Structure formats: structure tokens, C-alpha cells
């Protein structure tokens, strides 16, 4: 069996070498003429993006990863703006969020875009994972692309969680208490407890995770993910009759629509803020992307906050090992798909249950 699918590794023959009988548009001078060397685009190296790709890459389902990336850029942009006014000193965090909402010009809108972008990223990411799983794009040679994706998924969860702890309202205080409880149960978790050091506060360490450590990890993983997609080419058996520059153009267009959508959502449904947090009580539920964890906590107690992520991320990490066939090979292992569907159902059921379940006290359970 060949080790690579059509249009797989080496998918991007150098300019001018692509055979016309492959159905590939030759890298003609006209293609390069579109980006003249003397133009600003030429100087910026845009010509390097002018390579052949399958036309299906321009369809929306193949753009879900790209749209997730646009959402992350929106989060970083708005996050940097918010951070100019946010104060991670525990006594002042809540007030500084109120300040952002009420005194900073466009502050409430920017904060709401940050909130909605985090929500939308979860939706596009969910469908991105579903689509690449459905197409079995995790099979040889794309296992590492998938694993980097799993790392990205975990990092985005980390960002959503640390972001929630910052705002100092009731939800934030409860999230922080969960972080401490979870850290105490995990080996090496001491760094996320207030007693780790007396020189700074836990909130300020979570803030540094949120605004510097995790975004850096995210960017490193994204670079790796993109580099491997470039090396292996997109998983498709079509002839490469489109150009990547067209893809970037379409993605930018859809990205702008996404940003407009975020702007509208933020203007019409601004992000809310709870009352200043009171310690030692649990009266809120987490944001919906965490409700499946909440559901397991309701069933098995505090350990659920470790068990649920281990099961989901563990399953995702194991997928390329469970289904080791090549995507061209016969005998698509239905049981892996079946298992995937089961995990998906459990995930959705957990979220739905979390929405309707009674509010429960988990700390100390």
C-alpha cells in the first residue's frame, strides 16, 4: 500500500513542475504576474502562498479550522485591548471589569466581542473536529496534525477557564475555587493553589496564564498544526485545480463576515457580569462549554472535573492509534466511528443535562 494518498505528502510541487495531466493548473507566469515582485505583496512574500490546492478546500466545511483561527485572532486583539484596563489584583478585578464596561469608550462592546468570540470559537472548533474525524483525516500521515489539534483543544479550554476566573463575579469565584480543588487533586497542581507562593496572588498567576502563557502555547501549536497541513496538503482526493491565494481570500472574506457577526452579537446581546463573588458557596453553573464536566461532577462529585476531561481528551488522543488504517485502505473500522459517535452523544447529553440539572454543591463532595 502506498504510504500517501493522492495529493498527500509532497502535495505542493514547486512552481512550474506540476503536470497538466494531474488536473493541476500549471504555475504559469500569469499566476505569478498576479503578484509582481516589485509590489508590496511581492515584497511581503505573498508569492509563497500561491500554490495549488484541491478546490474542495474552498468549501465552508474545510474552512472551519481557518474560521477558528480568525476567532482566535479576534480574541487576542480584543484581549490585548481589555488587558490595558483590567486589574488582576483580587480586590480590584471586579471593579476594573465594571470600569471597562462603563467608562472605557467601546469597552463594553470590546468585552462582549471577547466573550462572543470565545463562544463562537467553541462552535467552529466543535464542527472542525467533527468534520476531520468524519473524513478520517487523522489517519497516516496526519496523526501529528491531529495530536497538535488535541493540544489546541485543551489550550482553548484552558483559556476559556482562566478567562472566566478573571472577572471577579460569583461565577469567577466559583471557577477559581474549582481550579484550586482540581489542582489539589492533581499531581503537580500546587502551582494553582493560593499557598504556592506568598509573593503574588493566585488570580494574578491565572491572569498571566490567560494573557501570556496560554496564548504563546496556542500560537506555537497553531504554527505546528499549519506547518503540517502545508507539508501533507489538505486531505482530499481531488485534483489540485485551485490556488491557495484564492483560499486565503475567501477565508478572509468569511473571516470578515464572522467579525461582523461578532460585532452584531456583542452590540445586541452584550456580555453580562454577575454580582461581586462571595467565597464558599456554589450558586452558579459554568459556561456551556464546561457543562459536560459539570454533569459528571453532579454524578460522581469533585473528581468528575478530572475524570470527564481525561476521558474526552484521552479518547481524542487515542483516535489515530485506534484507527491505524490508511484512509485509502479497505475496511473502514466502523467501531472507531461508533465509539466516536458514542463520545459525541455523551458530550451533547452532558451539556443538555447541565442546562436543565439542578444547581448542586460540588466543593467538598
Amino acid at each position, binding site marked *: 500500500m502506498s504510504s500517501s494518498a493522492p495529493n498527500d505528502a509532497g502535495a505542493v510541487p514547486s512552481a512550474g513542475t506540476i503536470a497538466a495531466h494531474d488536473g493541476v*493548473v500549471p504555475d504559469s507566469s500569469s499566476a505569478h504576474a498576479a503578484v509582481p515582485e*516589485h509590489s508590496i505583496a511581492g515584497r511581503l512574500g505573498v508569492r509563497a502562498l500561491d500554490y495549488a490546492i484541491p478546490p474542495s478546500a*474552498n468549501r465552508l466545511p474545510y474552512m472551519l479550522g481557518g474560521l477558528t483561527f480568525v476567532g482566535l485572532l479576534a480574541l487576542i486583539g480584543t484581549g490585548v485591548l481589555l488587558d490595558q484596563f483590567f*486589574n488582576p*489584583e*483580587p*480586590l*480590584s478585578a*471586579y*471593579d476594573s471589569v*465594571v*470600569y471597562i*464596561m*462603563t*467608562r472605557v469608550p*467601546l469597552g463594553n*462592546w470590546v468585552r462582549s466581542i471577547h466573550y462572543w468570540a470565545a463562544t463562537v470559537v467553541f462552535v467552529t472548533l466543535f464542527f472542525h473536529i467533527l468534520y476531520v474525524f468524519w473524513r478520517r483525516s487523522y489517519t497516516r500521515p496526519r496523526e501529528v496534525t491531529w495530536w497538535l489539534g488535541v493540544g489546541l483543544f485543551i489550550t482553548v479550554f484552558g483559556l476559556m477557564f482562566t478567562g472566566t476566573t478573571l472577572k471577579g*463575579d*460569583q*461565577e469567577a*469565584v466559583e471557577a*477559581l475555587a474549582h481550579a484550586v480543588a482540581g489542582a489539589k487533586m492533581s499531581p503537580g497542581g500546587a502551582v494553582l493553589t*493560593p499557598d504556592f507562593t*506568598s*509573593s*503574588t*496572588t*493566585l*488570580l494574578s498567576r491565572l491572569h498571566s496564564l490567560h494573557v501570556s502563557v496560554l496564548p504563546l502555547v496556542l500560537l506555537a501549536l497553531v504554527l505546528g498544526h499549519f506547518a503540517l497541513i502545508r507539508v501533507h496538503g489538505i486531505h482530499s482526493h481531488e485534483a489540485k*485545480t*485551485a*490556488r491557495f*491565494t*484564492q483560499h486565503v*481570500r*475567501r477565508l*478572509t*472574506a*468569511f*473571516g*470578515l*463576515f464572522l*467579525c*461582523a457577526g461578532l*460585532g*452584531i452579537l456583542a*452590540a445586541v446581546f*452584550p456580555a*453580562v*457580569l*454577575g*454580582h*461581586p*463573588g*462571595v*467565597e464558599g*458557596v456554589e*450558586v452558579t*453553573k459554568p459556561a456551556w462549554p464546561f457543562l459536560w464536566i459539570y454533569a459528571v461532577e453532579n454524578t460522581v462529585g469533585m473528581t468528575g472535573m478530572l475524570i470527564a476531561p481525561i476521558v474526552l481528551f484521552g479518547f481524542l488522543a487515542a483516535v489515530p492509534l485506534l484507527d491505524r488504517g490508511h484512509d485509502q485502505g479497505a475496511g473502514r473500522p466502523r467501531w472507531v466511528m461508533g465509539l466516536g459517535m458514542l463520545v459525541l452523544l455523551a458530550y451533547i447529553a452532558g451539556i443538555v443535562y447541565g442546562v436543565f440539572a439542578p*444547581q448542586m454543591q460540588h466543593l467538598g463532595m
Partner: protein
Amino acid sequence: MSAPGRFTQLRWRLGVALTLAAIGLAATPLFAHEKGVLTLNTKQAAPGDTLVARGSKLAKGAALRIEIRGALKTFPFGSVHTDAAGKFEMRLPIPADAKPGAYRVVAIASDGDVSAQENLVLRPVQAAAVPSMTRMPDMTTMHVMESRATAAPADIRVVTSSRAWTVIIGLIVFALVGGVLLLRGATSGSARTA
């Protein structure tokens, strides 16, 4: 060199010159004012306490307004005059209803510029009684004054000015129009390629 080549070079030089000018302009305020020194007898106090603020290295015989500025509230303390050495001392009784949080004590010159400043943390009354520098505040001390916990959203009045709405709508329209133009370009581009 060909005329278009020279034109492109000119554009680059102009771009670099404009960027440098913009950086220069942005950096100007950094050097605009000589700062005095303001010290407090304590950097952590509680509402109801009285602080002693001392200024030095300030303009001689100048009138300064003293304020304690928080994120959401500012407490004015009136004016003080520096002596012939550019120094002053003033007692600042912190209002008992001040909310715990991070504040700045500022000395403001007659032209409105901040001449000197120092950070101040107001602790909740109970927590301030703990004489400890070894344990910085964590969430345990946060808003102890607030009454009971609730999941309901706080009723925070946000006023969006008509100017802000114009910017918001402008940016949304810009994104939509930009997207449509790019899509049209992409479609005609792919038609050409095909």
C-alpha cells in the same frame, strides 16, 4: 532605474519617514514632565483609616490638588502648597464607605498634570486587621463586604454614546462590505484561473 521603480522606492522612504514621525510624536508625552515623589506612611490601609502623604522634589511654592483615585470612584482632598524646598505633608482621612480595591494617591499641578503619585490598596475592614505582609490578598478577602451570593447578573448601567454607536455600526459595515468585495474578487479570480 525605471520610473515606476523610483516611484516605489519613494513610497517606501515616505512610509518609513511617516512611521518614524508617528513614533516620535507618540513618545513625546513620555518626556514632557519631570515627576516629583509622593510617599505614604502605609501602602495598605482600610476605609476609615487616616493616611499621611508626603511630597518632595516638586515645584517650589506650587499649589497641588490631592486625590485618591480608584477605578470607579475618586476622593478629592482639596489643595496643598509645597514649601520652599518643594515638599509638603498632608493627612488624608479615607472615607469609611470607600470600597476595598486598588487606588492611586495623586498630586495634581494647576495645569491638570499629575506631578507625583503612589499606589494604595484599601483592604476590607476585617482583613486589614491581619498584620501580615507574608500573605498577599487572594480571593478569600475579596468583597467580604458584599452581602449574599447570587447567580443573577448585576444591574450595571452601560451608556453607549451616539458616537460609539457610529463607530460600532461603521466597523460592522466595513467588515461586511470588505467581505463582499473580497468574495467577488475571489470568484472572478477563480473564474479567470478556470
